[in-house]
């Protein structure tokens, strides 16, 4: 089975976030970056499928030069090779624009399966996989916990709301947006890190993939959320703060 895993590099989870001077995105200068967590689960599922059924795992990533680090880490975990679509400001594209570039890079590869995380931790639009499927004319499903290869096609376990699940069968090739948490993520081994150094990362520009299209949806302004509720914050050392809190819970909220 030939599997393409589309991954994204995002700021690390605890990054301090501040709107940039332009007001249209965040200040990225001092941030560190990592693989988008749901994409890490997509990669894990791909590697497990390869271990079971053989084949190849190709990592696909659109992003600036710094994304090469995240790609290299995916190769160290066991992906065979990578395609890096070099774009400086990914945020200048909308979901459709990014999906068009990814789809253009996927087409000549003729994969059996394309996996990606169900959403990104930065924009959180949760659409790239679905849009890519439509552009490629492929069936898809989202919020997938597990993939099982069948004689013809695949059977996937999809998460529904409120603790319900469902199995769905579909033919290959297909696109799946993977849910986080269904597998245990592997670490790169020393051997894996060493091997990754000689694995191929093919760099392509957006021009080679048909060019970046003008966005239809754009971010006008990024800002700190306005609080809808007045929160009473208790300061000071832990002991003093909890004493004030318990006082309020007892006499104001009357819940204890």
């Amino acid at each position, binding site marked *: 089975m030939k599997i393409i895993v589309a991954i994204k590099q995002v700021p690390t989870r605890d990054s301090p976030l501040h709107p940039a001077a332009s007001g249209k995105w965040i200040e990225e200068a001092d941030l560190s970056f990592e693989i988008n967590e749901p994409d890490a689960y997509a990669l894990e599922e791909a590697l497990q499928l390869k271990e079971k059924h053989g084949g190849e795992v190709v990592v696909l990533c659109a992003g600036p030069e710094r994304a090469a680090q995240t790609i290299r880490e995916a190769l160290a975990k066991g992906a065979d090779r990578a395609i890096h679509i070099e774009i400086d400001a990914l945020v200048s594209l909308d979901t459709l624009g990014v999906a068009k570039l990814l789809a253009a890079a996927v087409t000549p590869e003729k994969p059996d399966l394309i996996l990606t995380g169900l959403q990104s931790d930065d924009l*959180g639009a*949760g659409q790239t996989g679905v849009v890519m499927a439509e552009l490629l004319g492929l069936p898809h499903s989202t919020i997938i916990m597990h993939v099982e290869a069948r004689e013809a096609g695949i059977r996937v376990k999809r998460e529904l709301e409120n603790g319900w699940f469902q199995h769905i069968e579909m033919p290959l090739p297909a696109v799946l947006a993977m849910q*986080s948490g269904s597998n245990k993520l592997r670490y790169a081994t020393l051997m894996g890190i060493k091997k990754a150094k000689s694995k191929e990362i093919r760099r392509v520009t957006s021009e080679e993939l048909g060019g970046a299209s003008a966005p239809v949806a754009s971010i006008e302004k990024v800002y700190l959320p306005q*609080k809808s509720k007045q929160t009473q914050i208790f300061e000071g050392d832990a002991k003093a703060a*909890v004493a004030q809190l318990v006082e309020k819970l007892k006499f104001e*909220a009357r*819940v204890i």
Partner: protein
Amino acid sequence: MSILVVLEQQSGQWHRMSWETMAAGQQLGAALGEPVEAAVAGQGIGALATEAASKKLAKVWTLEHNLLDSYTADGYTAVLDQLIRKTQPKLVLFPHTYQVRDFAPKLATRFSQVLVSDVIAARVDSGTLTLVRQLFQGRLSGDMRVSGAGPVFASLQAGAWRADTLESGAAAVETFAPVLDAGQIRQKPEAPFRETARAVDLTAAEIIVSVGRGIREQSNLTVVEDLAQAFGAELGASRPICDAGWLPMERQVGSSGQTVAPKLYVAVGISGAIQHLVGMKGAKTIVAINKDSNAPIFEVADYGIVGDLFEVAPALAAEVRKTKGA
């Protein structure tokens, strides 16, 4: 031109967010000066359409077909594509449900558009629509503008609009007969199922102490277990804790777990991603303990302590025991 509200049902039962989306449609219809229509797809949905038609709407469309009995992305995309080409709405609104996330991006792509997903607010300034959505799991907000020829597609976050603001009325129900054949539907869905019966019913708990990523390691859970015991509370958790297997899935609070509304909810080391917030923001009193003062959990909290949970939680447990003992 009109606004189209796409309602969601399953086996003849409404998804409750359908009403919130309809309320948003009514408000935006008034602001934009557009008539509001609603659509419901499925099979055997006549009664649902009649119920929807009791609200203030210009029309309720029923999209009925035996191939729509079970939801599939291909089936729903095909029939809504046909309805939108016929009615040419200016704006198409969906509830931001798991099902909508599965097909609405595909539908928008058919119109060379991008779905603006998980919208929390909308503004109309001199006829221009601005949609507000969360970025970085709620740590920032973003104002979005949509251009392009096709309709604007937006899915609305749970609880962002209130269903109790819905205006009543009497709308006409019109049947739209979609063209659909089995060959178009590539996904073959099986019946939904639950993994195990739930032994813990968090919805019945009066007090819940819930733990998130901030706990860092499984062995640290004793800190929150002790706090739960001090309060006489059930222990809950955010998704990552259950995913990691540190607590069973039945203790998960949020969109993929249980929706709770206890009289007191204490969130310990939970940043407050929307998937968690939708499951607990109905609690009467919410306490948040987190080291990041900008964590979204503080937006829904009544009381907060910004600090290290490993200091605050044990101190709180001691204080609660002291108060209760007195």
